[in-house]
């Protein structure tokens, strides 16, 4: 017993000594310094050891919620940053609405714990309207090694001031099981597909296979609104933010042209028989229950990477004007009242580095980097292929962001499109029910704030 106590005391003393002797945390940073030499002023880069107080940064994110993406982001992206800077990043997945509620509470109590948010571009306005975000111009303007694609500036920059930096984008792509290629209409080409061809193709497959093979998310309030609206944009429906009619829209002439194509597929039994219980096309495409889909590039990437020899990928189809695609992005913003603005800026700089951009967007399933220079690093594995096709869409598409904050509730908006799908597309006779569309449009307008 005595011996044991003595040992314990020695151990404790040892531990205390060790702690006392531990050096303050230092990191090596590369700094540019101006040196005056023989009358000239030159700029040199030197490596310097600097002491950094160990800090914690709280990042709330509505992106990367699938566990695999989350693990990749934390282990492969955040960890090197933490090692490099000594900053500990507390990363939390929060739903869009909850994130807003959380910040509301923090602002109301003056107790700001969230330093940085990674939000969906359709919701940037929620935060900029409240004036909670800090300007990022000072930092962003110093970057000369990277240029941010301007596609999302509409939401990220308000009155000339940048509050968000998009770090990851997504668009819509076409994916087909190679078995479907036998039915591809003559003259059609996956890289230049039109919605007429897409519809004919779908009907031909259904007729040949005795079973519809087109996948969309039949479970309400998932992705149909985007899958459909990409086609409406292809027929010239202006993107959100334009004078009406603009996305989201149910009854404009451009939209009706898109409905016609989908109604053709519905009347030809081109959709999977169990379409109304589909909430994500990935499994169905992998299981070959579905052969054809226009869907989100990350989903397409996931399927394609599972077996690239079995699938063919192309940009989203064209309407009578251009490719159409909903384009979304997630961007970083820094809470103005945060106590850790400097650390947050370090993370912002890190995540926008071109090589990190590519690594992050590839690793999490084939999202698109938003920094142009990242594309220099593209190779030719399946995910690179997806990113290339997605870039075609991002560069050429008549696109639209999601004006989520213009509406009382985005879920309710989504549901209107789902209603039209089940009533007119799936169970219709291939004709357009303009009265239904007009009625739903009235309901849509009623949801506008």
């Amino acid at each position, binding site marked *: 017993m005595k011996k044991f106590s003595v040992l314990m005391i020695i151990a404790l003393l040892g531990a205390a000594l060790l702690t006392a002797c531990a050096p303050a945390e230092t990191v090596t940073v590369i700094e540019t310094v101006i040196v005056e030499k023989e009358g000239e002023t030159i700029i040199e880069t030197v490596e310097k050891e600097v002491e950094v107080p160990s800090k914690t940064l709280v990042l709330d994110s509505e992106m990367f919620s699938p566990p695999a993406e989350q693990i990749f982001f934390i282990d492969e992206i955040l960890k090197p940053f933490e090692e490099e800077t000594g900053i500990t990043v507390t990363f939390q997945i929060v739903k869009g*609405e909850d994130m807003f509620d959380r910040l509301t509470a923090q602002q109301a109590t003056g107790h700001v714990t969230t330093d940085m948010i990674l939000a969906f571009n359709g919701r940037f306005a929620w935060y900029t309207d409240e004036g909670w975000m800090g300007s990022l111009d000072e930092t962003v303007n110093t970057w000369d090694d990277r240029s941010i694609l301007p596609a999302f500036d509409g939401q990220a920059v308000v009155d000339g001031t940048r509050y968000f930096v998009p770090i990851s984008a997504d668009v819509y792509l076409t994916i087909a099981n190679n078995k479907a290629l036998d039915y591809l209409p003559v003259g059609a080409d996956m890289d230049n597909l039109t919605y007429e061809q897409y519809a004919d193709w779908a009907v031909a497959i259904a007729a040949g296979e005795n*079973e519809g093979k087109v996948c969309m998310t*039949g*479970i*309400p*309030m*998932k992705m149909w609104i985007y899958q459909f609206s990409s086609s409406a944009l292809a027929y010239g429906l202006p993107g959100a933010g334009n004078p009406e009619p603009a996305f989201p829209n149910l009854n404009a002439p451009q939209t009706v042209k898109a409905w016609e194509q989908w109604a053709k597929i519905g009347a030809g039994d081109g959709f*999977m*028989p*169990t*379409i*109304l*219980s589909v*909430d994500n096309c990935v*499994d*169905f495409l992998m*299981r*070959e*229950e579905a052969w054809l889909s226009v869907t989100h590039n990350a989903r397409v990437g996931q399927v394609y990477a599972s077996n690239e020899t079995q699938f063919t990928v192309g940009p989203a189809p064209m309407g009578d004007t251009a490719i159409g695609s909903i384009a979304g992005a997630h961007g970083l913003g820094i809470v103005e009242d945060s106590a850790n603005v400097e650390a947050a800026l370090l993370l912002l700089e890190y995540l926008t580095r071109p090589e990190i951009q590519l690594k992050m967007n590839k690793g999490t399933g084939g999202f698109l980097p938003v920094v142009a220079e990242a594309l220099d690093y593209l190779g030719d594995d399946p995910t690179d292929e997806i990113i290339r096709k997605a870039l075609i869409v991002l560069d050429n598409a008549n696109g639209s962001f999601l004006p989520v904050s213009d509406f*009382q*509730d*985005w*879920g*309710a908006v989504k*549901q209107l499109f*789902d209603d039209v799908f*089940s009533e007119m597309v799936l169970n219709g006779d291939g004709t357009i029910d303009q009265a239904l569309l007009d009625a739903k449009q009235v309901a849509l307008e009623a*949801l506008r704030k």
Partner: protein
Amino acid sequence: MALAINTERRRKIGKQIVPYLLVLPVLFYYIAFWARPVVQQLVQSFTSLEGQFTLNNYIMVFTDLNFLPALRNTSIIVVFSVTLEFFIALLLALLINRKFPGSGIFLFLTMIPMALPAVAVGALWKTGLTTNGWINSLLTYLGILTEGGKIYWLAGSIWKLLALMIIIDAWQVIPSIMIILLAGLQNIPKETEEAGYVFGGNYFTVLRKITLPLLSSTIQTAVILRLIAAIQIWLIVIVIVGFSRMPVLVERIVYYHEEVPRLTISPAMASGYTIIVTIIVSIAALAYLWVSGAFRRKRKEV
């Protein structure tokens, strides 16, 4: 003398108070964590956005296009699933209670669904029922379906999907009912039933005249607990068909609360539906207490 009577009386009163003192902590708990939110909901359900008293919320719920379908679907699920679950569970319990060789393993197997969370059950069935899922594969393997033949379980009318929902719910819930019934059966002394046979009964007369009457309080408990749970079914529904396609009462609450929380009507709808479900469940619970005799005074007061 007067003093003696006094202490005597005081003792009596003291004795009567004891049970009330004992439930006091529970009562506090209820007021804090149950009654308060319920009352809040109730108040909110009668309050307009401007803070005035209103019946509008209820009018809104009752005139909601989804209200009657939700009520109808919930009723169908409750009636059919509880009936189906009860009969199958009873059958299984009677079977297992006969203690045939291997009945222990059989009991274990039948209990597996109970251990799975509802989400897992939904996922399991959904991957099974889909066109290229394991149920069709199994049927093909067993030769019930011809090679390449398919049954579109998840396609078709709302009635077919409702039936599917009922079967899935039954699959998960039957074990728990069965356990309750089995416990009840095992409480019946063996001789009580044997006397039934000796005095002229066959299996069914003994079941009808002796076993089931003796099991009746257990059956009431099982059925009404199940009834209350069935009224609150929603997760399985949204896993299979999502929100709004096959509305049921609690699904409506979750819908307004979680899916479209920012609609101006959502708080009113959510609280209206909540109160309606609470009322229906309370009625079921009261019915349970009533038939189980909790309100009856003891027959012999000592």
